[in-house]
């Protein structure tokens, strides 16, 4: 048990108690939604956890750090930013994955680039975005997001 785990759970319990004093029916409905979403997100979470185990068990850290570690420099960041733009993984499960590659030799910049492009650039949702908001806004938003994700990643590499 680390402090973060306690903090997150206290926060949730606090919100729950506050909600309960406001409206019981709505709180009950919220918990139902929570249980449903938990079981919906469980399989991808378990899949990624198994893959992390295999990754750390079979791929030596030296290999990971060669491709996306400190010595890979800008090309490593670019590579993983592209990967993050194409992949369509929920943010929730990207964090344990990110932590595992960080643990095994990836650079801070690479990890930050991965998470940021993963959430901000959506190649899979781009067609929908273009239909709803027009080509111009959608393409500009995704294109600029890709660039700023790399800028954010590089800044984080410097300050952390």
């Amino acid at each position, binding site marked *: 048990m680390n402090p*973060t*785990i306690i903090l*997150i*759970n206290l*926060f*949730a*319990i606090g*919100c729950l108690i506050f*909600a309960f004093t406001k409206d019981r029916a*709505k709180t009950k409905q*919220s*918990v*139902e*939604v*929570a249980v449903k*979403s*938990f*079981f*919906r*997100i469980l*399989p*991808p*979470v*378990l*899949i990624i*956890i*198994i893959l992390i*185990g*295999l990754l*750390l*068990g*079979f791929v030596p850290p030296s290999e990971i750090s060669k491709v996306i570690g400190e010595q890979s420099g800008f090309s490593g960041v670019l590579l993983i930013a592209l990967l993050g733009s194409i992949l369509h993984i929920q943010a*929730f499960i990207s*964090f*344990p994955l*990110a*932590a595992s590659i*960080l643990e095994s030799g990836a650079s801070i910049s690479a*990890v*930050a680039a991965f*998470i*940021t492009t993963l959430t*901000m650039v*959506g190649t899979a*949702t781009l067609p929908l*975005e273009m239909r*709803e*908001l027009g080509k*111009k*806004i959608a393409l*500009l*938003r995704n294109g*600029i*997001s890709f660039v*700023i994700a790399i*800028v*954010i990643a590089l*800044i*984080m590499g410097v300050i*952390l």
Partner: protein
Amino acid sequence: MKTEEREREKQTNKAMIRDYLLLGVTLTFAATVLLIFPDRLDIVTTTSWDYFLEMMMILPAVMVVMGLFAVWVSKETIVKYLGESSGIKGIFLAILVGALPTGPLYVAFPMASSLLKKGARISNIVIFLSAWACIKLPQELVELQFLGLKFMLSRLVLTILFVTLMGVSIEWMIKWSDKKTSNSTGGENGAGI
């Protein structure tokens, strides 16, 4: 509206069955690989178990927070607040409202589109969408757990900063290009929406 909801329910059920099948495939794959390389069994299971424990200790709480917001903050509330505000207050609200844990990105697109049609500022909509995509409260909680306070905070601050800059510059670019096309086509409305 009812049938639309039922249709969505059906689709999420289908996706869930697919996900559980995929989990079965992954488990079988892992078991096979570990049978071939039994010397790796120990490190693989310990690593996975550690991550599993960590996840299980925060995931229920994160889901409760999401569930509460999903029920309490309706789409109508979000549209109402975003449509009315502008300036610094508008930017602030766009980030705040986008960061509330209220569902996947594809839910936000139609909202953004209707807000644009109602005359909301492009900058606020772009900021709202980007905040929705990457500054979600439950995501920040999971990031805090796995990557630590320093990592989470610095990425959050940088993201807010750059997303705001991006929103403002996209609005500027779209206005500029619309003006150009409407000048060259003789005042015809050339909005790209």
